């Protein structure tokens, strides 16, 4: 092993003459990093980028708690997992007094891309009228650009006492944290999905959503 400093360029060089071609960095007798000319670089636990302290749990990449956004298109600059609490909303602002039986949301954010899962069910829906049904509470604000105002997502539903839908779509408007709910009622009848009016939801309804959208 030798450590060289190139005086002309101030470039440091750690060099091993060992024929295995491997250098290990150890701390307190435990290897943290291996560099092998044939196998590449191996980090035994977590790698912290930016000012992130590497997680002591498992092995992976730990990103800073606050994203340090990169403008480079080939740079992964954020990762986060967590939960959120979806709620019923409407375009009229009123929600009645639903009793939630399931109100579960979870997300994974990779770079600007957010994937969410929602399991929302409620009973005692007392709403009536033509307001559009929303699902509020998304964990991140969608991208502000009106060039990409809508993202269509797949969903499932259970609406035993309401209108019979044959297809439901959830759409995230730009610069928002909600889904607007759209539906079709019969194949080939509606030329395009129409907003779901709250009056079309029965006294109890369940939404299952697996969706994704972009942030800024």
């Amino acid at each position: 092993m030798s450590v060289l400093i190139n005086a002309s360029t101030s470039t440091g060089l750690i060099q091993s003459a060992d024929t295995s071609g491997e250098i290990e960095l150890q701390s307190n007798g435990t290897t943290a990093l291996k560099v092998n000319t044939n196998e590449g670089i191996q980090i035994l636990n977590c790698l912290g980028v930016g000012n992130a302290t590497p997680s002591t749990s498992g092995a992976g990449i730990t990103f800073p708690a606050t994203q340090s956004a990169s403008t480079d298109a080939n740079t992964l600059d954020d990762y986060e997992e967590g939960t959120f609490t979806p709620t019923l909303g409407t375009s009229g602002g009123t929600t009645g007094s639903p009793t939630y039986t399931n109100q579960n949301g979870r997300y994974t954010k990779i770079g600007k891309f957010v994937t969410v899962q929602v399991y929302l069910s409620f009973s005692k829906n007392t709403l009536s009228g033509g307001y559009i049904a929303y699902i509020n509470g998304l964990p991140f604000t969608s991208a502000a650009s009106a060039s990409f105002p809508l993202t269509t997502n797949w969903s499932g539903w259970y609406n035993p006492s309401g209108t019979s839908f044959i297809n439901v779509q959830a759409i995230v408007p730009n610069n928002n944290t909600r889904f607007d709910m759209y539906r079709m009622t019969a194949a080939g009848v509606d030329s395009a999905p129409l907003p779901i009016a709250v009056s079309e939801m029965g006294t109890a309804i369940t939404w299952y959503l697996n969706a994704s959208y972009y942030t800024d």
Partner: protein
Amino acid sequence: MALTENTNIDQIEVVNDWNIQVRQATVIERDGQFVARTFHRWVLTPDSDISGQEQKVKDICNAAWTPEVRQAYETFKAEQANKLGAK
């Protein structure tokens, strides 16, 4: 071995003028050593009820939601409602 669980608001961001993104972190430690961390998020807008929020969240909301920002938000909502056919 003592397990402890601490929950606190660890991030408050203002996004696109009026969206206040809040993140709550729950950290579990064993004898002071990190074991696990989970996040729960929500976003507040000028028409949100912030009475149940922590004071530091209220302070950010009140600072960000100036009359001009509130007006811009209402204008944005109206424009979007028209675009999407809201009733």
